[in-house]
């Protein structure tokens, strides 16, 4: 698998919280920071909104990796949403690893509205890691051709 991965471009789904991480990614855009275009952003109101089954669903639908990003602990717009998310994703990540999904595929990060460059670093790191491990083909949903 590793040999022909050089031209593999992963699809990464990112769930970004409206108040910090989405603004952070927006800042990266407005400050013309270059980062890999493999990431597809879904804006959610809070990282606590992200159901762990969203991650499952993304992986089923062909995502090679998932990033969940929210405000730094203590900075949540809704006070505590990211704390709940942290508990959930710690368990979810461990569990997916237990099933045989590489832990590099499911990542969580804190990106604040002023951290455009951190967002860039996160995306670069995740993209690079996933390029190394190759496409996610374990339980991709079968496409129906009608």
């Amino acid at each position, binding site marked *: 698998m590793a040999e022909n991965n050089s031209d593999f471009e992963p699809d990464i789904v990112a769930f970004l919280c409206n108040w910090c991480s989405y603004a952070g990614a927006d800042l990266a855009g407005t400050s013309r920071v270059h980062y890999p275009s493999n990431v597809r952003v879904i804006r959610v109101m809070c990282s606590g909104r992200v159901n762990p089954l969203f991650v499952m669903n993304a992986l089923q639908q062909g995502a090679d990796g998932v990033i969940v990003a929210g405000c730094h602990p203590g900075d949540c717009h809704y006070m505590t949403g990211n704390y*709940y998310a942290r508990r959930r994703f710690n368990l979810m990540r461990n569990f997916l690893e237990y099933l*045989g999904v590489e832990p590099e595929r499911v990542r969580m990060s804190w990106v604040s509205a002023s951290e455009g460059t951190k967002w860039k670093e996160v995306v670069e790191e995740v993209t690079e890691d996933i390029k190394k491990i190759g496409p996610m083909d374990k339980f991709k949903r*079968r496409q129906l051709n009608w």
Partner: protein
Amino acid sequence: MVDVNKLREIAREVISREDVRELIGYRPGTYGFRARPAFVMGPDEVDELIFTPACVNNLASYIALEEKPPVRRGEEPDLRKVAVMVKGCDSRALVQQMEEKAYDRDQILVLGIPCTGVVDMAKVQERFPDVLEPAEITLEGDKFILSFNGSKEEVPGEELLAEKCKRCRYPTPLVYDELLDEEVERFADDDYSDVEALENRSVEEKWDYWEEKFSRCIRCYSCRNVCPMCYCEDCVLDRLQPMWMRRSVDISENTAYHVARAYHLAGRCIQCGECERVCPVDIPLMELNRKFYKDVEDLYDYEPGTEVEAEPLLSTFSVDDSEEFIM
């Protein structure tokens, strides 16, 4: 062992009470060594109640799952208690349900059975197939005595004991109104060796293992239906809008199903082992649940179903929760 006469006597007393609607217990099954749940509505029905190592069912499932039809106009709601016989593990299901505010403590009356272990019916079936006449299992010392067709067989406890009993931390019920026997000493502890063995495999090996297991799944949802913690009236699996996972039986949807089922039991599963017992294709579901059980204990120092007053794990947080995995 519980004295069956004492059990019936207490059951008769309980069901005769004004404030008790029904009593859920065990009675002999229709064939072989099996026992089945008994729903006792009056004092004349208590004489069939038993408790033997064949009483494997977790009766806590019935309490939260009971359908409560709307009360008709002019009628008073039935507020009488439901009495239930529980083993140590089953009592933890009650505790966890009460922790989640599924019902109040005064809505149930608990007959606690200090449990010395139940059999694994699959092992009994394997060893003594074709026993169709009603037969009996009793535990004497550390041996199971199986009586059938007029003969008696002794089997060392280890060989027939259910896996969950070999690592049982709470043999005596944690909540009860009446205790039917002497308290049982904690006889085992859990070292998670099975979970750790799987954790230490490589990513590819793990997926090969689970792929084979999940592809066997026929999506009968028995594991969900029997689970005492799966009592949501509106389950994500039944939802059509949004459809969380499709109904098709293939590796993608089966994996999604098993992740969803196990995740919804994270910090809630009390390890009664019912899901694994009812699985018609022998998927080791407890290995999934036990992974969460272990993680929850390691990371958050939380053990589900041990304290009624505790807060459910995933609806609380601590500012100091582990952050190692965050980039």
